[in-house]
């Protein structure tokens, strides 16, 4: 029994630091299972190791978080909770219809953009929206959503309430493949703050999207913190 704990202690010591290689992770799982998942001594070792690991973070100097970060996180948190309630209340299909309605309203708000957009994706946004998945961006600076059809290339970004960026600046959309940002187009809103942008790319490998404010040269890598983000994995 003591030998079991020695092995488990050695493996847990590295596991809580995220230092175990895959084969040792498997060895730890096997050892815990073989030893019994309700072993109080194993649990004590794990809790102590995890406590130490978490507290190592405090060896670092604290870093100032970006201005407005707290509000963005709180806004997203409260919004997500409201979303969860909404899902329970109206059901998944009703919620999906609601999202599409929001995007459609944004598209209608964009008005005359329909004509111009029709030359981009080969279909009008209203047609495109039928059967599309719509995901809202979270953050500050405007209301933005993206509509896309899984398995099909191309997407529309709808926006309202966006402020016009300063002279020499533009909004830039990024797709994240893993954690690699891929530039996906620059845009400026109309004077009324609306935007309708066709994204000529597949989102099949995209897990997250972000919008930053960049110089009008549209850099190939982001230079500022995103003001809006969308998580496609939770759609």
């Amino acid at each position, binding site marked *: 029994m003591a030998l079991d704990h020695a092995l488990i*202690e*050695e493996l847990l*010591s*590295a596991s*809580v*630091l*995220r*230092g*175990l*290689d895959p084969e*040792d992770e498997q060895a730890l799982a096997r050892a815990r299972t073989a030893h019994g998942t309700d072993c109080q001594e194993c649990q*004590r070792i794990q*809790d*102590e*190791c*995890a*406590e*130490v*690991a*978490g*507290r*190592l*973070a*405090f*060896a*670092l*100097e*604290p*870093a*100032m*978080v*970006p201005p407005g*970060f*707290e509000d*963005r*996180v*709180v806004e*997203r*948190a*409260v919004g*997500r*909770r409201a979303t*969860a309630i909404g899902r329970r209340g109206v059901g998944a299909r009703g919620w999906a219809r609601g999202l599409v309605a929001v995007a459609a309203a944004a598209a209608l708000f964009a008005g005359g953009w329909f004509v111009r957009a029709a030359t981009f994706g080969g279909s009008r946004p209203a047609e495109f929206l039928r059967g599309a998945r719509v995901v809202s961006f979270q953050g500050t600076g405007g209301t933005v959503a993206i509509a896309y059809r899984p398995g099909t290339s191309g997407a529309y970004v709808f926006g309202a309430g966006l402020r016009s960026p300063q002279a020499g600046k533009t909004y830039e959309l990024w797709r994240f493949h*893993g*954690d*690699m940002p891929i530039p996906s187009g620059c845009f400026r809103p109309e004077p009324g703050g609306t935007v309708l942008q066709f994204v000529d790319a597949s989102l099949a490998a995209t897990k*997250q999207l*972000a919008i930053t404010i960049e110089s009008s040269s549209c850099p190939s890598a*982001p230079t*500022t*913190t*995103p003001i809006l*983000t969308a998580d496609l994995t939770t759609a």
Partner: protein
Amino acid sequence: MAQPILLMQRASARGRGDDVSTIDLSEARDRDLVRRVGQGDEEAFRGLFRRYSPSAFALAKRVVRQPFLAEEIVQEAFLALWRNPDGYDQQRGSVKSWLMGMVHHRAVDVVRREESHRRRTEDAAPEAVDPVVDPAQQVVEEIGLPEERRAVRAALRDLPEEQRQVIELMYFGGLSQSKIAQKLELPLGTVKSRTLLGMRRLRAALVGMER
């Protein structure tokens, strides 16, 4: 039998000569904030965010080396807290350690996906225990955290150099034991034993492990 969290608090206080009640109150306040988050209390959520986001942001930045990714990581960790405050079990450890664990877990996931992983972790060790005066103490709400910082730094400083190096490369650099063995040109078994011995010392210093 005393609860682990209380053992940790008393041992930490003994080691520094601090007042136990200060640390107990600080942890008790954190637990109360988590409980209130479970009731949907936005102000409690803001309280935890203000208290711990500077340390969380520093940790994420240290591991992933890119501020905008670090921001995402911190955001996701706090959203996880908001969505599932019941994930915290006070019998298992402190709120601050639980929170930083979520941040660290996500940060290492990110760094292991990075193609430039090796380059970013080259200098992972030197900054970890830099005992510079903390300017952020003046602008962030972090009652009790200066003491925490002193205790953790002291515990790391007291480790033999070879043990500290392995632990810092693992924790702040996101390297696995086999990667560390390659990097330091050591047998894997040596890295494993240094990890174990270092963690035992840290547990004795920070959690009051009695052996």
